[in-house]
C-alpha cells in the first residue's frame, strides 16, 4: 500500500528506496516499531544462457524440438484416429483412445513445456517492480462521470417523465411471469408428493416376485440362507415403472425361525423365518442389499449403515436414523408369498412432512 502512488521503477531504484518505504499515514494498520527490515531483492544472477552462447544455442534447439514434437503429436493423433477405428468392437476402444490420447497429450505437453522453457531460458531476464496504483479516480474523472449521468437523465427525461418510467418498471416486473407459469406446469400439480412418499405399490395380496423377471416366488423356493431381490408382481405393468420400483424394492431373506427376534406386534409379519424388508436405506436411500447370511447383518454400501435383520432390522452401526421398514408377508392358497398390506411407514430417507 505504501508503494501505491509510486510509478513503475526498475529494480535498482526500488532497492535504493526500499528502506524508507514506511507509510506516513498507515490508516488502521498497526505499525510495529521494530518491524523486520525489508531485505530487498536478491542480487541478480545471470543464467547460463546469458553467459554461454553455446548453452543459448542448445536451449533454442530444445525449444525448437519441443515445438516440432508438438506438431508431430498433433499429426499422430489424426493418423491414430484413422489407423485405430473402433468398428463396433468394444476391445478396439482401448487402442483408439490410447493412441489418440497419446498424440494429443504430446501435442499439448510439448507445446506448454516448450513455451515455458523459452520464457525461462531465452526471453529477457531482468527483475522489475510494478507498483500498484490507487483505485480511486481523479476528482475531474469523478465529476465528469456524474455530469454524464445527469446529462443523460436530462436528455432522456427519465426522471422528469415519471408516467413513462413507472410504466416501464411495471412492464419489467410482469415480464418474467409467463416463464414462472410455464415452468410451474412442468412440476406435478395434481398429486401430493407427501402422499406419494407415504405409499408404495404393495397392497394386500400383491405377490412377491423376482427382480427383474417378475416371476412370483413360492414360500418353498426360499431355502434357508437364501436372499431374493423382490419387486411387486404387477410392477412391470405400472405406469411409471422406475419410480414405483425405487420405492417398492424389497429384500427377502430366510433365517432359522429361532434366530429371529420379532417384535410382539409383528409376530405374524414373517412366514416360517422368511422376512421381507425395504431395500431403501433410511439414511439417504441407497439400496441396502449386502446381506451376510451367517451374521444376519445388512450393510449399506454408501455410508456403511448396518442393520440387524434378526433383530427387526435395527441400526447397529452408521448414520441411518431408523430401522428398515418391514413388509408384512404371508402365503396365499397356492403357496405364493404375498404382501399383507403396504409398508406401515414411509420407506427411505427422512423428509420434512414425515411423521
Amino acid at each position, binding site marked *: 500500500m505504501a508503494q501505491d502512488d509510486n510509478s513503475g521503477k526498475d529494480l535498482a531504484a526500488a532497492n535504493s528506496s526500499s528502506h524508507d518505504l514506511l507509510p506516513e499515514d498507515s490508516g488502521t494498520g498497526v505499525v510495529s516499531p521494530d518491524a523486520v527490515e525489508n531485505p530487498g531483492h536478491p542480487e541478480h544472477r545471470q543464467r547460463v544462457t546469458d553467459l554461454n552462447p553455446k548453452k543459448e544455442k542448445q536451449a533454442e534447439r530444445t525449444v525448437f524440438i519441443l515445438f516440432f514434437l508438438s506438431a508431430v503429436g498433433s499429426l499422430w493423433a489424426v493418423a491414430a484416429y484413422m489407423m485405430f477405428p473402433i468398428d463396433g468392437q*468394444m*476391445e478396439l476402444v*482401448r487402442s483408439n483412445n490410447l493412441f489418440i490420447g497419446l498424440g494429443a497429450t504430446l501435442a499439448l505437453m510439448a507445446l506448454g513445456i516448450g513455451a515455458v522453457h523459452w520464457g525461462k531460458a531465452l526471453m529477457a531476464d531482468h527483475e522489475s517492480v510494478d507498483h500498484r496504483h490507487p483505485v480511486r479516480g481523479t476528482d475531474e474523472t469523478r465529476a465528469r462521470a456524474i455530469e454524464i449521468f445527469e446529462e443523460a437523465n436530462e436528455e432522456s427525461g427519465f426522471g422528469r417523465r415519471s408516467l413513462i418510467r413507472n410504466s416501464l418498471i411495471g412492464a419489467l416486473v410482469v415480464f418474467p411471469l409467463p416463464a414462472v407459469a410455464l415452468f410451474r406446469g412442468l412440476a406435478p400439480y395434481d398429486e401430493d408428493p407427501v402422499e406419494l412418499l407415504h405409499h408404495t405399490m404393495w397392497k394386500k395380496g400383491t405377490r412377491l416376485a423376482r*427382480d427383474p423377471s417378475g416371476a412370483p416366488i413360492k414360500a418353498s423356493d426360499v431355502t434357508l*440362507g437364501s436372499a431374493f431381490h423382490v419387486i411387486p408382481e404387477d410392477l412391470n405393468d405400472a405406469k411409471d415403472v422406475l419410480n414405483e420400483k425405487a420405492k417398492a424394492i424389497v429384500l427377502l431373506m430366510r433365517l432359522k425361525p429361532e434366530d429371529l427376534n420379532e417384535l410382539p406386534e409383528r409376530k405374524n409379519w414373517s412366514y416360517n423365518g422368511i422376512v421381507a424388508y425395504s431395500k431403501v436405506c433410511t439414511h439417504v436411500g441407497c439400496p441396502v442389499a*449386502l*446381506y451376510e*447370511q451367517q451374521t444376519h447383518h445388512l450393510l449399506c454400501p454408501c455410508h456403511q449403515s448396518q442393520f440387524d435383520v434378526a433383530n427387526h432390522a435395527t441400526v447397529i452401526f452408521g448414520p441411518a436414523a431408523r430401522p428398515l421398514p418391514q413388509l408384512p408377508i404371508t402365503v396365499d392358497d397356492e403357496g405364493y408369498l404375498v404382501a399383507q398390506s403396504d409398508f406401515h411407514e414411509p420407506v427411505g430417507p427422512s423428509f420434512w412432512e414425515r411423521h
Partner: protein
Amino acid sequence: MSRKTSRPAAGKSRRTGRRSPAAAAALIAVGLLFTGGAYAAVSATTANAQPAPAAASQSNVEDGKKLFQANCATCHGLNAQGTSDGPSLIGVGAAAVDFQVGTGRMPMQGHGPQAQKKPVQFTQEQINQLAVYVGSTAPGPSIPDAKYLDADGDAAHGAELFRINCAMCHNVAGAGGALTEGKFAPSLVGVTPAHIYEAMITGPQNMPVFNDMNISPEGKRDIITALKYQEKIGNPGGIGLGSLGPVAEGLFIWIFGLGAVVALTVWITAKSN
C-alpha cells in the same frame, strides 16, 4: 583411470556407485520388481479344479470317509455332525465340499473374520472322494453339470442378473468388495466356472444362497458367461486400477495427478539455471 594411481579417483567413482542418488532409485525399483514378481507367482497358483463327478461308489465313499476323519474331523466331528469348533456338514452337499476344499478355503488356516483362499491342499481325486462322502451323509447340492459351466450362454442376461443379485457385494466388475467387521466379498476374476456355480448354490460363509428356484441353472450359466466375457475383453477404457471404483481412482489421481501438478508448478516458477 588406472587402479593403482587413483585414491582420489576411487573416492569419486564411489559416489557414482552405491552412494549415488540413482542407486537408491535402482534399489527401490529392484525391490518393487521382486515383491511384485513374488506376489504374481503366489496369486497365479489359483485352484484349477475340473469338475469330474466321481462315481458315488462304495469305495469312493470309504476313501472319502478316511480322508475326512484324518483331515476334517477335528472341527467337523467324526461323522460330519459338527463340534463347537465347526459347523455340521450334514446336508451341505458335494458342491460345498468341492468349493471349500477346491479353492483351498478348507482346511481352514486359522480363525479369522472368514476363511480365505489359499493353495489347494488335496488332489482333485481326493476332493472328489471327500465330496462324495459328505454328499452321502444327507441330500444336498451336488457338483454342477458341465453343460452349465461352458461360459457360452447369454452374457447380456447374465450381466443383468449379476447386477441385481451379485454386484452389490462383488462389485459391478466382479472385483470384490468390503463387508462388515473384516469380512469381504472376494474378487471373482480367475475363479473357475464350477466354483462360481457352487458358491451360488451353497452360499459359502456369509454369502446368501441363490438356489435354482431363485436363479435358474441357465441363469447361473449366463452369469458365468458374463463374468468370463468381462475377464476376456479386459478394460476397454484403459487401466482398471483394480476396478475398485472411486477409492482407487481417487487415490491414484491425488498422488500422481496432483504430484505432477505440484512438480510442474515448481518447475515453472523456479528460476532457470
